[in-house]
């Protein structure tokens, strides 16, 4: 099991402190939810944990070693806006399997998991939002990651599509994949979260087991989120 640690991560841009001494430690599979208002720094933090952004100071540690290329290859990420290559559905899966050095024969399983068996040859860019997001999650899982990052994977989806994605996530955790995801959907946090991190203005406001935080958060901002109040 992967032990992922953020050690004092700070990052500023244009004189603004986007992340401010963020320290976190994830040992379980989760799902671990990062919550917080728009602009809190959630997406930036996820990019940093995946090695796509370098912190000004601090470090990301995987099993107590600095995040390197090998460790990064054991991670996968689904972006806030799914990125589809200008190819067919099948070719998008093939591409991911190929870069991960996995057999092409595994594509069929993931096509089925994504529910896209009858859209195999369709250009991936022409998929609907829900279909594209399903493919993005399946494609990320096809890599066989130890850790999967998801940036608001269901924010633009209807309940049926959301249920499908949540099913894929739950199955991934059962299969031993550590899941770290961002969501604004309090219902989703209640359904899936094991652990919750509340980020606010680039700082970790509080963090803990989901059932504790959902029941009795210490901070007013977190309680407001849990109650579904508009935090402004």
């Amino acid at each position, binding site marked *: 099991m992967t032990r992922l640690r953020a050690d004092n991560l700070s990052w500023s841009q244009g004189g603004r402190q986007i992340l401010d001494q963020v320290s976190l430690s994830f040992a379980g599979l989760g799902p671990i939810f990062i919550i917080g208002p728009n602009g809190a720094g959630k997406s930036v933090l996820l990019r940093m944990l*995946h090695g796509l952004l370098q912190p000004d100071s601090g470090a990301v540690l995987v099993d107590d070693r600095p995040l390197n290329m090998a460790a990064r290859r054991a991670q996968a990420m689904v972006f806030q806006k799914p990125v589809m*290559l200008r190819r067919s559905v099948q070719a998008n899966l093939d591409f*991911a399997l190929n870069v*991960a050095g996995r057999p092409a024969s595994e594509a069929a399983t993931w096509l089925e998991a994504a529910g896209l068996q009858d859209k195999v040859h369709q250009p991936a860019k022409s998929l609907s939002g829900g279909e594209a997001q399903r493919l993005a999650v399946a494609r990320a899982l096809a890599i066989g990651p130890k850790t999967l990052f998801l940036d608001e994977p269901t924010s633009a989806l209807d309940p049926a599509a959301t249920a499908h994605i949540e099913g894929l996530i739950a199955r991934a955790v059962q299969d031993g994949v550590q899941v770290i995801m961002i969501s604004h959907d309090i219902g989703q946090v209640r359904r899936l979260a094991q652990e919750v991190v509340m980020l606010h203005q680039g700082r970790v406001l509080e963090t803990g087991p989901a059932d504790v935080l959902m029941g009795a958060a210490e901070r007013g901002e977190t309680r407001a989120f849990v109650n579904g109040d508009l935090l402004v």
Partner: protein
Amino acid sequence: MSGFTEELAGALALIFSGDAALWAVVGLSLQVSLSAVLIAAAIGMPLGASLAVFRFPGRGAVQVLVDTLMGLPPVVIGLMVYVILSRSGPLGVLNLLYTPTAMIIAQVILVTPIIAALTRQAVAASHEEYGEQLASFGLSPRAALATLIWEARPAIITALLAGFGRAVAEVGAVMIVGGNIAHVTRVMTTTIALETSKGNLALALALGVILLVLALGVTLAVRLLQGGPQDTRAIS
């Protein structure tokens, strides 16, 4: 007016009768310009893609060079190549002046910056869209380059077509370094210039019609690539 109609009829007769002199000129034009585009693509595509993705020492200087060469009038490029290839020039010993090879060299210099600049633009857009995803897949920037170029292929083919259009339509540079010698270095544009001045409008018009058709073909191909049904983002 009747004079023009006659000349046009003569031109069409030349085209459709398969006039040997006419088609030899067309053939040489295509040979020179297609060779030039092929070589320019081999240089300009990797160069443009590298400029889009990598930060390397001298990158700024290369950008300035590419942009400057792109803005240079073709006759100036012709003059530069002439000076280099002329008997007393640094490459005079190669005896290339007034040969199709000299014309290819001039057109390569003319077209490479266009292909490089358009490729840079296309690959920069593709990097913007796919760069993070490819990095997330664990690809190094070098390994990602081929995919970025492949994802930008409609725009890159457009760049190649634009380069070909520029090369085949150019007069000044090939006139200077080719010398417009009959049966040797006479291409469509230089023949038009010469035959028009001699009053042989039929041949000039015939070549004009062929260039027009070529230009139309390139334009249609570009439109097809950019507005094709494949690209669903063309709307937004």
